[in-house]
């Protein structure tokens, strides 16, 4: 469904992503794990068109998107939940969700909002509240709900567990599994490798801008090198 070949990304003179190639199959949960600064978020930003790769190709659902403007990529069914829960703080929960529906045809919005409320009952309770007054976990749910409003075929999540209490992290990962079961393909970027590998089908390990290992999630969990580097021995 998503195929990246030879991605090379630079921040000015800094060579951030070095010849990265990977793919995400339909219905999969694929995770990119790696330490701080390994380039995980950079890869997601490049896929969604916020940054550009110097070389190679990004193909999504059979179409080349490496030169497509980022707002049209969303329309094609690739949604990005950026790092750090970027919700519209001064808008209400419902308004945030409405913004997520921006690329979709009118008339289907209320139905879609109801579906998102089903998935996240907490958001329904707080629909009139300003997003800025939500807790971190609720904001993460809102960011995910907003991305779901655009009916994505592929959902890219950037560090959904960042800064959340362990209990909430589990909840979020539970929801990720449910979404996947409902047919959404997921590309998950995480520092919390344990949790990520527990829900994912496959994983890629990233180290300073390069993919060093790839395998089934279960195998990676057992891999000695990975355990040492990311799972605390």
């Amino acid at each position, binding site marked *: 469904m998503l195929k990246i070949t030879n991605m090379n990304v630079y921040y000015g003179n800094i060579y951030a992503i070095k010849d990265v190639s990977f793919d995400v199959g339909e219905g999969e949960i694929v995770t990119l794990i790696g330490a701080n600064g390994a380039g995980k978020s950079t890869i997601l930003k490049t896929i*969604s068109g*916020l940054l550009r790769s110097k070389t190679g190709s990004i193909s999504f659902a059979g179409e080349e998107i490496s030169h497509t*403007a*980022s*707002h*049209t*990529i*969303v*329309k094609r069914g690739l*949604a*990005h*939940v*950026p790092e750090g829960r*970027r*919700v*519209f*703080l*001064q*808008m209400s929960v419902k*308004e945030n969700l*409405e*913004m*997520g529906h*921006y*690329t979709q045809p009118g008339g289907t919005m209320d139905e879609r909002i109801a579906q998102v409320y089903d998935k996240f009952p907490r958001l329904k309770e707080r629909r009139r509240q300003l997003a800025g007054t939500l807790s971190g976990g609720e904001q993460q749910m809102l*960011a995910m709900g*907003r*991305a779901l409003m*655009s009916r994505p075929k592929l959902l890219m999540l950037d560090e959904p567990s960042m800064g959340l209490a362990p209990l909430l992290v589990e909840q979020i990962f539970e929801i990720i599994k449910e979404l996947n079961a409902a047919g959404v393909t997921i590309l998950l970027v995480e520092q919390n490798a344990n949790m990520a590998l527990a829900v994912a089908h496959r994983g890629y390990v990233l180290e300073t801008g390069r993919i060093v290992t790839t395998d089934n999630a279960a195998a990676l969990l057992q891999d000695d090198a990975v355990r040492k580097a990311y799972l605390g021995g």
Partner: protein
Amino acid sequence: MKQFHIPMPVRYGMNTILIIALLLVGHLLMESGVLPRAHANNVIQVGFFIILAVSLNLTAGYLGQLPLGHAGFMAVGAYVGAIFWRSGLLPDGASIVVGLLFAGLVAALFGVMIGIPALRLRGDYLAIITLGFGEMIRVLINNIPTVTGGAQGLLGIPRHSSFLVVYICVVITCVAVHMLMKSRHGRAILSIRENEIAAESCGINTTYYKVMAFAFSAFFAGVAGALFAGNLGILVPGEFGFMTSINILMIVVLGGMGSMAGAVIAAAILTSLPLVMQGLAHFHVISYLPGASEHIVRYILQWIAQHRMIIYALLLIIAMIAKPTGLLGNYDFSLSRILEKLIRRRNVGKAEKGGADHG
């Protein structure tokens, strides 16, 4: 209990009646000669400052940028309008409309031109390049005397800015900006202010909307500029200096970034301040004050009238300390909402009374 709502057609009707009533009252006051000349002129000035503030609010308030070159767009509109009117190509009535549109469109073109490079910048950097742009326009006007009259000024501009014309322009500006902000485009603009990356990830073309906001803002600034030219009858480039931009920004900040009602009220207060102080200084009641205090009070009032920039600055400092969001924050006035509240309260009152009677 279902909350009471006034239906949309009634709302529009009410607002239309209010607008027409204000127009009639204003027109009567202005034309009957009840208002002294200085006051009448002040009303006109309030009018184009409202347009300037409401249009700047689009970029400074709703889009969340800090442009400091609003006087530049105003200058473009002023000169385009003035030159068109002086040419006398069209009969008076049509000339006014076409001249205003033309002034707005050329200013909007400049808005797009400044908007595109400015997109790459934000915050202080954007402020600096828009500031530079404003100054560039002024210097340019100064240096092409064959077209603009240069530093000597452009004379003999037809006095087209009657109360009626200015009032209609103010209403059109406010309604247009209001409708824009209520539309999905307005939402997109607001979301860029809130969080640009999130807006982008919702599929909003942030580049497009930023340029659009700049263009709209410049359009209305251009119209205000033309009105300014048609009011004075003379244009000199010095009128469109940096301080004018700052003046407009001050109105927006004081009124509340992102509040149209705030911009309107602040424009009225700040523009009328010198005249009001002057008026107070000559007010009869002051002569009843005991001894020297009469002179002191008069002196203070006159001083304020003459040094309005100091007062503006003071007001701004006080506002930033006491209410950093401006007079109205991002509250916006809605006649219908106020009426709805009143009616609801009355209904609740009745219901309680009814309950007491029965109990």
